[in-house]
């Protein structure tokens, strides 16, 4: 079986796929939300976010000051396109009769 077009090796590892799937459903998400949702440490999540940011798939911005300062992560248009392509590739691998389109974003 060959890898279908759109399959993205950068997104595919489980942890990173989980992170991108979370970001794909959001306009932005707080770093703490992502950390709790994925069950990762600060450093592990930072590493994953940095990898995505370096590839142009994600961007990080900081808001507020002092105790209210928060870090927001969002998917770029490029990242969203790559994720959509990857989901399509996964669907092609599974086959049209097994997974309905409603099961994935």
């Amino acid at each position: 079986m060959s890898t279908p077009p759109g399959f993205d090796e950068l997104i595919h590892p489980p942890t990173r796929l989980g992170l991108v799937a979370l970001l794909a459903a959001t306009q932005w998400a707080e770093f703490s939300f992502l950390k709790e949702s994925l069950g990762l440490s600060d450093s592990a999540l930072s590493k994953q976010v940095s990898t995505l940011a370096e590839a142009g798939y994600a961007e990080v911005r900081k808001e507020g000051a002092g105790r209210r300062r928060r870090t927001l992560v969002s998917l770029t248009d490029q990242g969203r396109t790559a994720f959509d392509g990857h989901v399509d590739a996964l669907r092609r691998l599974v086959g049209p009769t097994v997974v309905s389109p409603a099961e994935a974003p």
Partner: protein
Amino acid sequence: MVDSEEARARLAEIAERRKQVLDGTTRGRHRGWDTTGLVALVAGFAAMDLPVPMALRLSLFGGAVIAALACFTHAGRHGRVAMHRSQMTPRFWALLAGGALASAALTVAGLRLLDQIDFPLRNTLVGVVLAVFIAATHPLYRALLLRTAR
């Protein structure tokens, strides 16, 4: 090489993450702004009981409702996660519209009922009941929202 079993597992993971986001958008809302919105809503209904001209009462009511909506919007913006527009499916909008219709029906029914028994401060009471209804049905809204992900 990725086989179909692995691809299926990854798609299931993606669906689960989407549910986490939907859950996060409701649980992660700013409680202070949500509470302020409910208080503004009650204040709007209470304004309808004031002994002032109807035009002024309606103006106060309208202002309070707009303030309440602004507070609810603010609560979402100050949450930990903001839903992407791609997640606002027809089912999502149907759920929101259903909630709005249920609230409107409750308000009209409450006002008609209190009209018949001539209860003092009846608008305030309806406002309080509506605010309690909105707060109490939040878990139901969350559960239904998660069902829109299926």
